[in-house]
């Protein structure tokens, strides 16, 4: 197969072209005993409670500053499993490729998936590749499903959140959404903003090792941003959430880009940002430990769970005023002026 080639419908036909694509790219890259069985599925052995999560990735552009759709497809699902308090072990990987995608780009994505999976310590054990006609996709869509074993000390659920718990964030917000937007057709603007895509499984695992069930909730703030996670916490627990704007970590360039477009960074998508709701007795230590981790060096305690303002998120602004933070409705749209 030449790197100059493009994907065509034959690559999804199930015939010899499909076989060549799978043998030359997929099996060669992800080679492991489970996948190499080339069965319809994989037979796995897992001990203990398991967590499973699935996600589809439809980002455009597929290559962006700081990553690509393949890296995102691994990190995204790994993080969802990790947020359940599990250490992810295996991933499924399904591609829907639009006719016309360059083989070279497909290979770059596959290689990136492999490198990211290795970094996360997960194996790709089953998968699927379909090709759709030109115009019926957006270059490439990827679905991943991850399974992992729940950490023995994990006891994570909304029900465990109580008044006084502290909310800790691991890094700068709105980075991924603005990196994508800065390269989106029709809106390109010069910036050095890079996506924050990162795997969070090791840091989540470390926190569970050390603080066990004092960690009441993990939640990554992807689509809908930090505001949506905080709103879910308020609505699902029936308690209040209080945060301080001055403690929200945000890069100056990202903040400026949001300002120009009239977007609220609280609602902009992230890929490597998570919130930990922890017992107040361990909050200082959790924060200190997180700040030593490369993926969490900008960690901040942004607020706490309150008895008052039931089901609402209240934010104290930088000038000391208060506002409600509501869930995102529809898509954030840049304003006229």
């Amino acid at each position, binding site marked *: 197969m030449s790197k100059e080639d493009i994907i065509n419908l034959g690559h999804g036909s199930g015939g010899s072209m499909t076989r060549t694509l799978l043998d030359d790219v997929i099996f060669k890259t992800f080679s492991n005993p489970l996948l190499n069985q080339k069965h319809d599925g994989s037979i796995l052995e897992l001990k203990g409670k398991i967590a499973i999560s699935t996600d589809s990735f439809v980002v455009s552009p597929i290559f962006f500053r700081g990553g690509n759709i393949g890296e995102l497809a691994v990190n995204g699902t790994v993080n969802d499993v990790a947020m359940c308090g599990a250490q992810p072990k295996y991933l499924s990987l399904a591609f829907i490729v639009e006719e016309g995608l360059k083989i070279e780009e497909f290979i770059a994505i596959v290689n990136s998936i492999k490198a990211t999976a290795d970094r996360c310590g997960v194996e790709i054990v089953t998968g699927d590749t379909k090709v759709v006609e030109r115009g019926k996709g957006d270059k490439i869509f990827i679905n991943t499903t991850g399974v992992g074993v729940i950490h023995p000390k994990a006891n994570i659920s909304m029900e465990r959140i109580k008044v006084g718990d502290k909310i800790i964030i691991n890094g700068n917000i709105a980075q991924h959404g603005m990196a994508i937007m800065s390269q989106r057709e*029709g*809106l390109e603007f010069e910036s050095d903003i890079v996506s924050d895509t990162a795997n969070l499984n090791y840091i989540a695992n470390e926190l569970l090792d050390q603080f066990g069930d004092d960690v009441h909730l993990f939640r990554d703030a992807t689509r809908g941003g930090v505001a949506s996670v905080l709103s879910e916490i308020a609505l699902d627990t029936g308690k209040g959430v209080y945060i301080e704007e001055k403690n929200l970590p945000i890069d*100056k360039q990202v*903040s*400026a880009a949001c*300002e120009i477009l*009239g977007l609220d960074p609280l609602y902009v998508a992230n890929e490597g940002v998570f919130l930990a709701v922890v017992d107040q007795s361990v909050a200082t230590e959790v924060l200190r430990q997180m700040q030593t981790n490369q993926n969490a060096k900008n960690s901040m305690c942004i607020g706490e769970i309150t008895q008052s303002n039931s089901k609402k998120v*209240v934010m*104290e*602004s*930088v*000038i*000391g*005023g*208060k*506002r*409600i933070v*509501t869930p995102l*409705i*529809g898509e954030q*749209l*840049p*304003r*006229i*002026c």
Partner: protein
Amino acid sequence: MKYLEEYRNLEATNQYLSLIANKVTKPWNIMEICGGQTHSLVRNGILELLPKQVQMIHGPGCPVCVTPVSLIDKAIELLEKGVIVCSFGDMIRVPGTKKSLLEAKAEGADLRVLYSPLEAVEVAKANPNREVVFFAVGFETTAPANAISVLHAEKEGLKNYSILVSHVLVPPAMEAILDDEFCNIDAFLGAGHVCAIMGYKEYMPISEKYKIPIVITGFEPLDLVQGIYMAVSQLEANEYTVENQYARVVKKEGNIAAKEVISKVFRVGDREWRGIGKIPNSGYLISEEYKAFDAGIKFQIIGNDNVLHTKCIAGEILKGLKKPYQCPAFGKECNPTNPLGAPMVSSEGACAAYYHFSVDENVL
């Protein structure tokens, strides 16, 4: 972030809040004209930090909110005829009589959400066999870019590009509000972005005629509290004049080059405001010389029937006669998912600002 962080400074803002509190001796109603100012007042929690005597009244300054329903219906009609309609993002969720532009898009219409009218000219170039219409909405702020798109299309010799104009002008709206028999406004915060283009000479005769202070004001917390302090100072001293708080952006004569482009392509004419009605000389219409680029003429869009949902009190909100939460439908039948009127749907609308941000216990 220069010019932003220093205008979000806690200490400086508190100083001005104290100055206002020390200065004020009686109740004053101050109207901020611009939806961006409303948004910032509520989002930063400034309304709760002001002394009770200072009431901020939210003006009509959201371009999306004041665009007549009939024009949205017309844009949808064009879409359904196969025209490519291009629009700014915050216009697409505003409900027309039957549906919004977004809903028309979901049904298969060719709606393009753009960030600049110049992109619409590119769309017209790329689709020579299709008609392309840019929905040119906004106050004086967006008029120069919309005018430039017409000049570009002319230069390119494009016959398939036109604009559906709904430009509204601030000073006539201020006069219409002041002429209303129920008007209770004591001072205005003028819209900083509009004045960046137009300057503020036009505001002087208004201040003089109605004996009302007008302070041209920016959008950051410190801008707003400083602007309010300047307005309160004038009111307490029984004075009235036009002051410029936003001097880092606004010059008295405005942006000469932008004004020249506007006057080349547009002429001033009567304009219908959603919820307010027709205001004489309150809008830009396309000038005779450029009428070939007027979608209204090209597609024979006539009539300006201004339909409002019967339960929507947008008119009273936009004139500052009622607060959003005084509307019986607010937060119930009318919410951002199911807006009855534009002030709830637009990101700068007063109703949406209260719905999203206000911690006032009267709200929701």
